[in-house]
């Protein structure tokens, strides 16, 4: 009798042990992406405890195409078209720093007019990139108007770039030694008209999106990245400037003719998602001023491209050059062994550096804040994967 009771008790105990909830059981694992409207070409695994994210692990590499290895098999000029593919809507900036690095290696001087046209194309492309980012940010916060308006205005800038370079998004415009061709006739007036129109539109963006109470509630105070943490994680671009650090490669280390241009670094001190989404918008405003100055100061005539030998090459050496792209500092580290093909090319992109902030910001925040944090990081997965 005792034996039976003991057995019964043991069975009950065992059953209770099985049913007993552990800490792990309360967590639910969610896989966001790659087939997910909000994530793009990227996947991250998150674990949620109720409403709060307790674990996040990014899993990039879905568009890893081995650009750095391919570079070693092509010469310096052949490399340009495939190097702009990681970020085709900001393609002038990603080839800009590549051209600067090759120019330093091969000791090429760029003519003054070429430098101005280069900077002009780069600023126009920054607008195209930021408008695309803003459109995606808008639609994933459920604001359809903010998808349609920037997409529509982006087409106008694309028209300008198409007139300048001949292609809609993949320009291959910057080459070592300058730019591929001169500006077309009547480009200055067209550009000025477009910039004047766009500045008017920017105030409307502010009214409908940035002053929208729903948008502000979803972003203000969400995903705080303090100044110290921003430095520690080594983020760059708008994410850095939103954390109150006025750092811009165009000011810190002026390349080409940027030291002759008068502009301010736009930064905010609130460190939240709202600041991170506003800083690119302020950059667009500032970029309009830069475009005006560039058009004014541009020499009326002259060469746009230095004469190059067929396969440009330099002495053995290495160079690291960076520019300010739409997502922050974009650096190229090129090692040359004296042949026309680079020995090693490393692309240091803003997206890859900002990815480190994603788990940091997501852990501890609510699941509903995930889209506003993720897209505020100004992250483009294709560029991060390279």
């Amino acid at each position, binding site marked *: 009798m005792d034996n039976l009771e003991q057995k019964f008790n043991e069975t009950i105990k065992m059953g209770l042990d099985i049913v007993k909830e552990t800490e792990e059981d309360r967590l639910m694992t969610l896989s966001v992406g790659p087939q997910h*409207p909000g994530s793009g070409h990227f996947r991250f695994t998150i674990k949620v405890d109720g409403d709060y994210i307790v674990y996040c692990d990014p899993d990039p590499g879905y*568009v*890893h195409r081995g650009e750095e290895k391919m570079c070693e098999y092509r010469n310096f000029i052949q490399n340009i*078209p495939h190097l702009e593919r990681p970020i085709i809507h900001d393609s002038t900036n990603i080839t800009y720093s590549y051209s600067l690095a090759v120019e330093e290696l091969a000791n090429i001087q760029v003519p003054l007019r070429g430098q101005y046209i280069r900077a002009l194309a780069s600023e126009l492309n920054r607008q195209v990139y930021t408008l695309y980012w803003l*459109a*995606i940010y808008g639609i994933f916060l459920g604001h359809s108007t903010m*998808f349609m308006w920037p997409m529509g205005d982006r*087409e106008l800038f694309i028209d300008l770039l198409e007139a300048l370079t001949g292609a809609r*998004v993949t320009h291959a415009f910057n080459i070592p030694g300058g730019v591929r061709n001169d500006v077309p006739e009547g480009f200055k007036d067209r550009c000025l008209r477009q910039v004047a129109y766009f500045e008017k539109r920017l105030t409307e963006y502010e009214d409908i999106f940035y002053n929208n109470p729903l948008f502000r509630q979803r972003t203000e105070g969400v995903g705080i990245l303090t100044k110290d943490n921003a430095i520690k994680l080594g983020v760059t671009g708008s994410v850095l400037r939103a954390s109150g650090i006025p750092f811009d490669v165009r000011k810190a280390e002026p390349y080409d003719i940027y030291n002759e241009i008068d502009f301010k670094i736009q930064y905010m001190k609130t460190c939240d998602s709202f600041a991170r989404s506003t800083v690119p918008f302020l950059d667009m405003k500032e970029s309009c001023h830069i475009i005006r100055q560039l058009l004014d100061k541009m020499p009326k005539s002259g060469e746009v491209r230095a004469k190059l030998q067929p396969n440009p090459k330099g002495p053995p050496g290495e160079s690291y050059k960076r520019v300010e792209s739409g997502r922050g500092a974009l650096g190229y580290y090129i090692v040359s062994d004296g042949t026309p093909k680079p020995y090693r090319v490393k692309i240091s992109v803003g997206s890859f550096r900002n990815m480190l902030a994603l788990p940091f910001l997501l852990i501890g925040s609510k699941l509903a804040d995930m889209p506003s944090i993720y897209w505020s990081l100004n992250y483009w997965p294709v560029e991060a994967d390279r």
Partner: protein
Amino acid sequence: MRSGDRDSIMIKDLVNPTNFNILVGKLGDALTRALDQPLGYAINWGRIWSLWPVHLETACCSVEFGAASGPRYDVERFGIIEAFGSLRQCDLIVVQGTVTRKMAPRLRMVYDQMPDPKYVIAMGACAITGGLYIDSYNVLPGVDGIIPVDVYVPGCPPRPETLIQGTMLLQEKIKRLKIR
């Protein structure tokens, strides 16, 4: 389901729980055969104007795909490419650019989960042959090795107009297909 040796089985043999799937398949076949002549045109017409794509971005052509949904090109006015969340309600998959070795199993998984009928558009040079990345170690030389492609849209990236034209070609193709 459509194999010939099953035709000899009588309908009454199939009416039991174990053979239920075969019964449904047979009934479906009979239904499509009966409907093909009188209603095929109407069913294909319905399919033509509701080509909804899966929102799976494989590479950088997604930028031009996004531009196609924007206000200037506005493909939704044709009732075709409306980017949609759930793949269970989609019948079109637009492979937007390079398919890497890491993405390929996911792409096949997405394709397998879509309900029939389903169509595939390979968008961009990378999805057709590998394009610029033909000699890369991590890129598939064309997407048709893993999923059957209906229409190839060339370009690097294709302009939105080209994507619209490719979709219209697919519509022509569907018009001539027997209903499945």
